[in-house]
């Protein structure tokens, strides 16, 4: 059962989750990407990555905000952002430098582009006729069916970075106010397994989590999943976060998982008036490439034996 979804990937970590999703989708469905999962990727950079599927929308936010600072009054952004010190108006061509306020300004400046993208993606997912055509073009008899459930909105990014928190909150605020009130799933990753770990990341995470908890108190459609661990577990956690997203939107057990999670979030919200869900993962599997490893081990053993024999003989 496939669930229609909009997936927003914010910042480097978000894009890495996207990479993993792409890999898993290719593995499961032998296709580059499915149109029923609309992807919007946002990064504070000027460069557009070349390896993204064509159907993904990529929005680069690599503005030189430092140059725009003098004419900030002309921008249609919240007044409080215009009052931010000049440090927040920084050059974003090479990233936001772990400063969410700077990213937030860029998101605000590009509000219309982002909103148009989101609306287009949403309209596509509501367009039954277009979906039917695309489904027919893709599906074969052994493919799972497309669920009638309302589309999900999934937001992924790092808690400790600059673009991740700004993108997640920008997306949450937009979708919370959306007239169709879609279910919003946030995957907030870090700060302990972020690309950097330190005081700045912890401070960013504290502010992001505070905002998300506050919003979740009044918005039952928001589910916040907090994925964290040790720095050396980063790859594993990114993979598992993607795997969870994929299970929720692309696998048969996804709808039952969502039902159980719904019960969990409801209970916790009643108890705490706003909550987040810490997600942890464990996996036990036969080692990857077990056969290959065995072949390599046996081969090395044989070669070393020959080497020893030759050494012995040549002596």
């Amino acid at each position, binding site marked *: 059962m496939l669930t229609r979804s909009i997936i927003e990937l914010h910042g480097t970590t978000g894009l890495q989750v996207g990479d993993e999703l792409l890999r898993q989708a290719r593995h499961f469905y032998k296709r580059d990407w499915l149109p029923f999962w609309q992807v919007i990727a946002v990064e504070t950079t000027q460069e557009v990555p070349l390896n993204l599927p064509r159907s993904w929308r990529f929005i680069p936010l690599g503005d030189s905000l430092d140059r725009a600072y003098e004419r900030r009054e002309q921008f249609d952004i919240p007044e409080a952002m215009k009052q931010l*010190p000049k440090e927040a108006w920084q050059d974003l061509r090479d990233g936001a430098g772990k400063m969410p*306020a700077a990213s937030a300004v860029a998101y605000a400046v590009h509000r219309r582009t982002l909103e148009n993208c989101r609306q287009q993606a949403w309209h596509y997912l509501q367009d039954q006729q277009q979906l039917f055509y695309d489904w027919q073009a893709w599906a074969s008899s052994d493919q799972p069916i497309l669920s009638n459930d309302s589309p999900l909105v999934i937001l992924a990014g790092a808690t400790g970075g600059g673009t991740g928190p700004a993108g997640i909150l920008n997306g949450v605020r937009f979708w919370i106010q959306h007239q169709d009130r879609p279910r919003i799933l946030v995957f907030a990753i870090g700060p302990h397994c972020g690309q950097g770990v330190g005081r700045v990341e*912890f*401070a960013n995470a504290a502010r992001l*989590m505070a905002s998300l908890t506050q919003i979740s108190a009044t918005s039952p459609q928001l589910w916040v999943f907090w994925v964290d661990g040790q720095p050396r577990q980063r790859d594993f956690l990114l993979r598992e976060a993607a795997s*969870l997203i994929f299970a929720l939107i692309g696998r048969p057990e996804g709808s039952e998982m969502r039902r159980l999670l719904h019960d969990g979030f409801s209970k916790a919200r009643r*108890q705490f008036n706003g909550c987040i869900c810490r*997600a942890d993962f464990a996996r036990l599997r*036969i080692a990857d490439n077990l056969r290959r*490893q065995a072949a390599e081990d046996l081969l090395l053993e044989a070669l070393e034996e020959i080497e020893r024999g030759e050494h012995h003989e040549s002596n």
Partner: protein
Amino acid sequence: MKAIERILDEQLSDSCIAKALRNANGDREDAVDSLVQQCRQELYRSRESQLDNEEQFLRSQLTRMPFADRIAALREREKKLQNYADQVGESLDTQSDAINETEQEYTFYAALATGNSEYRDLLRGILHRLIRLRVRQALTPDLVDIYREAAHRVEALRRQAEGDWQVYLQLVNGLRMRVNSRPCDPQALVVEYPPAPKRSARNLVREILRRYLHRPVGDLSRESPDSLIERIVGDCLSYLPPAPTLAEAVSQQTLRSFLLGLPLTHGVDPGEQPRLEPPLVFIEAPAGLPPLEVNGVQPAVWEQPPNAPLVARVFKFIPLQGIEDLDEWLEADQAMCEKYGGSVLHSAEPHLVEEQNRFLQRIIELVQGGADDGVHLDKAAVTRV
């Protein structure tokens, strides 16, 4: 290079010399010249084929030898040929002496034989020997050239063998590095594999390896060590049985340890844990595993195909103050506020910062009210922002 000697022996047999003398009407010099020319032509004609034969013979012998021995054998052969060429080249003086001695001997017996048929055969024999020596002396540079060429070919062969040896060493080192640099994956269960008795698997791999290593000299160095490893491993893989599924390979004890070690409380502040609902545990389990029980928590289990991994996802619903180490985050938040003189540049919603501050203040009070002695936050610093 015995074949070369054989050719000369044939060309300088008594009958050939007698024929040459007859054709030259008994003129010794003419006979020598014609024999030199004839031998040179024959050497030139068979030179390439003899050298090729020699090389092929060496190659076939080398294929049966181990790599290190190949180089040693070729080096020895090369040295032998060079020595021989040197010896032949340096033997011109000795040959001249022998010619002079034979010439004197011939003159002596020729004087004795005048009018005496008794010495005719002896004299003929000496004459043939003399002609043979003269022809061989004239052909010495040709022979030296052939031996040097043979040595040169062996040297080229040795270089190929050394190239093979280098590739072989790189193969061993590359494979060793590959094996030693395998990432350590705690989620991966490494089981005893292949299931067949180890000796037969070893023999199988050795047999495959032999096919690659006992190839003609120079073949190994035509490929890069990496592609060689890939090819040999690929061949080995085609003979290894399929990897076992998790259900086949996992022991009860491993399964039990895995379930007991599930992260049921990770990331949650210990003070908050008693207040929380039991975590939700979702398990994807390959078919064939025994029933799964998670430390008092009833998991939701989805059965997967037998070759799937065992995946557990644990969900804990916590309030903000339930985050483990939240005090560290809040202290960092406070420090960042101080750094920018109250400007909360680490907030992604700087326009809503007052509301955030009020909320965080409430959280700090909750954390401190929770009697966690580890939390020492300066509340004033947060409210000041």
